[in-house]
Every structure is written in C-alpha cells, then in structure tokens.
C-alpha cells in the first residue's frame, strides 16, 4: 500500500476571472520508505501539493489517500509531521517547550517529553539551547528547532517544505546527511520540497520535477545512487550525471530522458 496516493488532483485558487490554477492533473504514488523531492520553479505549486497531502487545504478535485485513508482522516490520526518554509515557532515557548508541543498535545508525561525533546535537540545539534526563546536564535537554528519538533513524535510520514532554504551550504550539507541518517533509522517516508538540485539528488529516491502555470508534474526521475550516501556520494560521476538530468528536466529539455 502506498503511503501517499494522489490521483487526478487539481487545485484552483480564486474565482472565475482571477483564477490561479495551482495544480493540474497531479498523479503520484509514494511507497513506504521513499524519499521524494519536489522540485520546480517558484509558484509551481510545491507548497500547495504538500499542504493538500497534509489536508491543510482541500484539492478542488481528485483523491488523496495517506496510508490508504482519506487525507483528512490521516490528519486526524496525526500520521504526519510537517516542517514549513518558515520555522513557525511560538515566541512564548522556550526551545524545548516548542519541541515538546506535539508531545504535549498527544498526552505524554512531562518527563517523557523532556527526555524526547533533549534527544531531538541533540540530533539537530542544539543541546544547551533548551531554555532559550526563539528570538535568541538565528534563522537557521530556529529552522532546526522546527525540524526537531516535527521529528519528535516519530510520524510515519514527514512533509518538509524547503526546510534548509535559510541555511549556509556547510550546515545544509551536514543536515542533509543528518536527515538521511534519521530517514534510514526511522524508516519514515519523506516528501521534501527544495530549490536545490544537488540537494534533491543527494537525498532522494525519486525526484519529482514540476513546471509552473499550470503546476504539473513533468517528469519523475529515479535516483539510483547507492545507499547509504555520504560526502563521497557527491563526488560520484553518476551524481553529476543525475544533477544534469534534473537540471535539464527543469528546463524542459527533451535530452533529459537519456
């Protein structure tokens, strides 16, 4: 059974004369344990697609199943965690309390929550910042807190909207490796939006290339790089070949098919 199954999904924003067709005829099946990257020009509907999977908005038509259930029900069951483009931390909560938010909602005891939050903060290398408020953190640190928060309750599906967009290249590469390790260990299925071609290739099992106006899937490129991946993966000739292939698919080049 697919973790995510999207059939004939359209999304139209607005009314007749000022309509935006954000998504047109999207079909996609994501299998358990996959790491899927969505890549495409700005405004092509990547965030919209992610939000439809999470039932934060409804598709205009089409069917979205998550773990075989309609998306609204999967949301009710808290079957996914989400990381937004912005960190979306609560100013009034300390770092550890922000990470504990979903655990609190799910009724864990304070000691369970604290232990789990510390574990997650260690993972994103923010140990020692437990008692800080979000305003005392840099943008990248805030984003890492929001990743820790999404991971904290071990969701079987992780939706990530450009989580590393605000980070420097070195931190970004380190967190990419980190994320792959988490993915391998937890066997979470990940849907990941990015603008970075190397990032998409390095992380994914498949890269979904989208085009804008209307937002469509133009190509799905399987990434056959060996697992587990590490820094050396980025040096492989195959890595460069795939990067080129994705880039050409983004340009709409036919030669990408090879």
């Amino acid at each position: 059974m697919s973790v995510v199954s999207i059939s004939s999904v359209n999304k139209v924003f607005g009314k007749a004369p000022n309509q935006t067709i954000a998504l047109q005829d999207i079909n996609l099946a994501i299998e358990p344990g996959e790491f899927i990257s969505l890549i495409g020009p700005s405004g092509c509907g990547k965030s919209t697609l992610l939000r439809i999977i999470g039932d934060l908005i409804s598709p205009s038509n089409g069917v979205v199943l998550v773990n075989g259930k309609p998306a609204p029900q999967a949301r009710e069951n808290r079957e996914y965690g989400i990381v937004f483009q912005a960190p979306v931390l609560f100013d009034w909560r300390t770092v550890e309390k922000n990470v504990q938010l979903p655990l609190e909602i799910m009724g864990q005891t304070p000691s369970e929550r604290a232990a789990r939050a510390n574990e997650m903060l260690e993972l994103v290398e923010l140990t020692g910042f437990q008692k800080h408020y979000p305003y005392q953190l840099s943008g990248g640190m805030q984003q890492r807190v929001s990743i820790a928060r999404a991971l904290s309750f071990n969701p079987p599906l992780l939706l990530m909207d450009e989580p590393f967009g605000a980070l420097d290249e070195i931190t970004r590469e380190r967190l990419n490796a980190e994320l792959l390790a988490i993915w391998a260990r937890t066997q979470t299925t990940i849907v990941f939006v990015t603008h970075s071609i190397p990032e998409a290739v390095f992380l994914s099992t498949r890269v979904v290339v989208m085009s804008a106006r209307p937002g469509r899937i133009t190509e799905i490129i399987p990434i056959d790089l060996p697992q587990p991946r590490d820094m050396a993966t980025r040096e492989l000739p195959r890595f460069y070949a795939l990067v080129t292939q994705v880039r050409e698919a983004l340009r709409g080049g036919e030669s990408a098919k090879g």
Partner: protein
Amino acid sequence: MASPVEKTYSDRQKAPSDTTRVSWLERVRYYLPTALIFVAVLLLWEGLVRGLDIKQFILPAPSAILDAFMGSLAQMVNLGIYTGTEALGGFIIGCALGIGVSLATSRWTTARETLLPLAIAANSVPIIAFAPVMNNWFGVSNQFSKMAIVAVITFFPMMINMTRGLTLVDPSALELMRSYAVSEWKTLREVRIPNSLPYMFNAFKVCSTLALIGAVVGEFFGGTRDALGVYITQEAAQFRFQNSWAAIIIACILGIGFYLLIVALERLVIPWHASVRKTEE
C-alpha cells in the same frame, strides 16, 4: 508572530535591566538626562513665576505647590485612594468585559465582524460626555457612578485590541495546530491567547490613562469632597490654586504608578515579547 500594530509606549531604547550585569553608573547615565530636564523645568518655572511676578491664581510656583501638598499630605493621600479606587474598579470591570466579549466572539467570525465596527465607532466618540448620565443613573455621590464611566471608556479599546490579538495570528501557526488535529479550544489556548497578550498589555497601558481621566473628569460633574476632581474644582473656584495643583500632583502620581504597575506585570508575564526582551549588547 505578528506584533501589535499600536505602539503606545515610547520607542526609546530600553533601560538596562537589572539581571544583565550593568553597573549602577550605567543606570545613572541612562536616567540622568531625564532627571536633569525635569529639575531644569522646575527651576525655570520657579524662576519665571518669581522673576515675572506671576499671580498665584494664574500659575503658582512649584515651591508653593509643594508647600500646599506637604501641608495637607493626609488629605491628599485620601483623595488619591478615593479616586484611585474608582479608576481601578472601573478599569477592572471595563477590561474584564472587553476581554470577555472578545474571547466570546473570537470563535464566531460573524459575531466578531458585526461587533467590531460598532466597537471601533463607539471608541471614536467622546464617551466621557456620558459622565453626567452615569452620575444620574448611579448617584453622584456613589463611587460606582465613576466606575461605570471608566468601565465604558476602557471597554472599547480593550475589546478592539484583544480581538486583534486573537485574530492576527500567523496562518502557519494555525496550520501547524491543524496538522496536530487539535480542537478550536486548544488552538485558542495554545496560540490565540498567548498571541494576544502583547496586545492586551498595550490596551492596559492605554486604558490605565483613560481610567484616571474618566474618574477625574467624572468627578468634575459632581461627587463628594473626598474626590480628587471635586477637590480640584472647588479649590479652584475659591482661588486656592496651589491646592488644586497639589491635587493634580496626586493625579500624576496615580497615573504614573498605575502605568509602572502594568509595565512591571508585562515584564513578568511576557518576557519573550519584543517590548520587554532583555537585549544583550
């Protein structure tokens, strides 16, 4: 999260907080200019009154006011307590109602969207004009008549600000809560109410000033001789202006005290907000 739109407090750089390691010298340096200007104005005032031989019924010298103030200190304190009680009582009633109404309507968009324009309209009329009516309804010598005026005056800004705070929430924060499939009630508690606290404190600051104005002006229209507003008008009618001025000092002390109390409370309750944050230079 969105920050309050109305900044009523001064944008001047914050005073060094006591928890960061700042020497007393820095504190003195921070407050010194203000204190110097205050003293300079008083000296200029005193000098002008004496030098130009200004009649005391036009403007008494600070020294004369201070004499009058110290001469009837006990009475001054009583005036302050009497009117302060009215202001505080009305403030509590008005703010509680304002918060209550905006909380109650926060869930019903239609109720909110019907009430809010009315509140904004009501807030822009000089409500103080109702003071004689309130005096008539609840009795001129009844402290509650002044509390009623203060309550009406403070209700609208409180309700308007609170409603803003509850509704101007980062949409992504609401989406996050939606992803956790929590109830409206939980979202109210976890997101909307904390988000509204800075707005609430802003309204408290505005309302603290309004409360004193409401109480004193309400008393101008009548009341017992224990009331600050009554005392000010009666002493002025009998050309004992230094006494009126002494009573005005009490009103100032009340106003500043009220404001500082709210600022202290704000620091305690929302240490995470930009208006209170401790910055480390």
